[in-house]
């Protein structure tokens, strides 16, 4: 993993979470705004309905008065009686007019003096006898007034009821609880306009601020435009705050996600680095073990008349030096002493014991001792009770000139012989390993093998497999050896190791091959 990756990954996480957050917040705000809008529209529509009702009430009142006047042919006292019953607020003005020859003449007045419609009382002559409420206009004054009138339908065509009603000071309605306008900022304008001059009344300074909803409803012969806005959130504080809450939580999550990703990535990076370091140390250690082992093993000598080859394979996953060894000590043409051994255990202890035994064998063999004597002397060098180790050793002396072979084994596998007649394991008595008390001195076994022949001496790593009787491994070796005998000796050993290799094998393997060719007659020696 490259170094900047954790930072990049956490940035990606943060950006993705943030993007999701923004989308969610946007959706929440859209939904909230939509709900607000719908609720506001509904409230404004309710106000419109109320205004419609109020217009109807006014029309009925004026129509009643007008009817009374018609019935009495404009009797002022009758009108006054009716009108006094209708005066609901101070500052109202109700009057009865007769239209004659295009001129309006006041017959009776109740309440304050009228300001009169713009253009004078002649404005009243334009009314039609339809009995409908005509909202004329706003009249400037102290306070401003709203002028409206009605000409009754029916037979009489010259009587008009005219009314002026005061608008609240500054056109501001006092805020009252339980009013349909409570909680809303509303302004009502006369006509299809929101011009300041057309303002009838409002519950808040005009123009109304915020998100407004405007609706125009009929009011008598005229129109009223309602502009409403909600100073508070109609959908509730939580709903309104939801987009911000989503945004806030999302930002925190994005930050937390980025930090977590970075932390985890760092940890992984660290773990990977540690693992790589361990792996390197481990390989190094294995390299050291292998190197040490090879340093302890000899380079095989050249012996005229003999072909020699050996292999050593360290066990897989082993950090410690093993205790397997092989050696060949030349004794002139066609002759040598060879040894293959295995110290129980591993590590420095096994390696030192192996070195000690190897040099002892060299020394004794060099001074001309027979293999049984060499073995007897080795027995004095190791004691399992003090060293906690024992060694299996196969010693052999070969004189290829006449095919004479002397063999002795201390707990070690007998060698395998490959000749044109076939493959066999040499029949050999096995004494206890070196380090274990033995009954009596070792006795060498003499075998005569005319060449061409190949002798294979090996340690248990070659044939031993967990969960398998050792004989199976020995048979496997014999079979493979028989098939590989036609190859050059070096190639034959490689082939055997390949054929008998076990994945993950723990034990070391030592393999020594000695090959000699046929001699029908013993050649002259020294």
């Amino acid at each position, binding site marked *: 993993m490259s170094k900047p990756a954790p930072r990049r990954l956490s940035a990606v996480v943060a950006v993705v979470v943030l993007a999701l957050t923004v989308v969610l917040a946007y959706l929440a705000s859209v939904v909230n705004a939509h709900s607000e809008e719908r609720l506001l529209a509904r409230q404004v529509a309710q106000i419109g309905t109320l205004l419609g009702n109020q217009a109807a009430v006014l029309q009925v009142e004026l129509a009643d008065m007008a009817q009374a006047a018609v019935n009495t042919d404009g009797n002022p006292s009758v009108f006054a009686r009716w009108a006094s019953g209708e005066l609901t607020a101070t500052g109202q003005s109700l009057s009865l007019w007769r239209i004659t020859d295009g001129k309006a003449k006041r017959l009776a007045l109740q309440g304050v003096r009228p300001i009169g419609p713009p253009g004078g009382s002649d404005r009243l002559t334009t009314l039609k006898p339809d009995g409908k409420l005509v909202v004329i206009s706003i009249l400037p004054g102290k306070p401003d007034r709203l002028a409206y009138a009605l000409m009754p339908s029916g037979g009489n065509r010259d009587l008009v009821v005219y009314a002026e009603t005061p608008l609240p000071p500054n056109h501001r309605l006092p805020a009252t609880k339980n009013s349909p306008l409570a909680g809303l900022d509303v302004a009502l304008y006369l006509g299809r306009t929101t011009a300041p001059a057309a303002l009838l009344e409002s519950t808040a300074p005009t123009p109304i601020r915020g998100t407004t909803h405007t609706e125009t409803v009929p009011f008598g012969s005229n129109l009223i435009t309602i502009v409403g806005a909600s100073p508070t959130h109609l959908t509730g504080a939580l709903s309104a705050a939801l987009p911000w809450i989503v945004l806030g939580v999302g930002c925190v999550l994005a930050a937390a996600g980025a930090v977590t990703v970075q932390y985890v990535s760092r940890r992984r990076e660290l773990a990977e680095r540690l693992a790589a370091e361990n792996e390197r140390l481990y390989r190094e250690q294995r390299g050291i073990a292998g190197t040490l082992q090879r340093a302890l093993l000899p380079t095989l000598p050249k012996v005229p008349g003999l072909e020699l080859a050996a292999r050593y394979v360290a066990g897989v996953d082993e950090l410690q030096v093993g205790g397997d060894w092989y050696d060949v000590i030349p004794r002139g043409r066609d002759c040598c002493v060879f040894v293959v051994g295995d110290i*129980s255990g*591993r590590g420095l202890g096994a390696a030192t014991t192996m070195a000690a035994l190897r040099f002892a064998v060299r020394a004794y063999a060099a001074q001309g001792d027979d293999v049984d004597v060499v073995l007897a002397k080795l027995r004095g060098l190791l004691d*399992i009770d003090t060293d*906690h180790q024992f060694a299996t050793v196969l010693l052999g002396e070969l004189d290829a000139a006449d095919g004479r072979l002397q063999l002795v084994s201390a707990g070690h596998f007998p060698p395998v012989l490959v000749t044109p007649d076939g493959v066999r394991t040499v029949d050999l008595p096995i004494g206890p390993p070196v380090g274990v*008390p033995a009954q009596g001195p070792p006795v060498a076994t003499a075998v005569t093998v005319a060449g061409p022949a190949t002798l294979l001496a090996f340690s*248990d790593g070659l044939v031993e497999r967990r*969960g398998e009787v050792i004989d199976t491994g020995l048979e496997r070796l014999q079979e493979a050896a028989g098939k590989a005998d036609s190859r050059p000796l070096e190639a034959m050993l490689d082939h055997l190791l390949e054929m008998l290799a076990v994945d993950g094998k723990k034990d070391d393997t030592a393999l020594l091959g000695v090959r000699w060719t046929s001699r029908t007659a013993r050649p002259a020696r020294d």
Partner: protein
Amino acid sequence: MDEPNSAPRARLTLDDRADGAGLVVRLAGELDLATVGELAAPLKDLLSREPQPLVLELEELTFADSSGIAVLIRLANRFERLETRGAAPSVRRVIEVLGLADRVGLEQS
């Protein structure tokens, strides 16, 4: 490197024989270089006992390498008369191949 830290793979249990005529030692699991260390304490305890007849039960021993066989030899060296019983074929053959059948008193198959 990553030796599993699970239950011990090798076990040694020690009993006195019911008839008082020596000890019975049971070896179980896999006895090799990697596991011999697990037996260090009970083995030391066992080897400090007076020499006396010893029966070695190997029914539950599934594998023994040279390090494992070394344990057997040390027991054989310490105690008067060793009898090894119940060895699985693979363990038996390792003992035989090492030329140790007599040494550890391996019962005839």
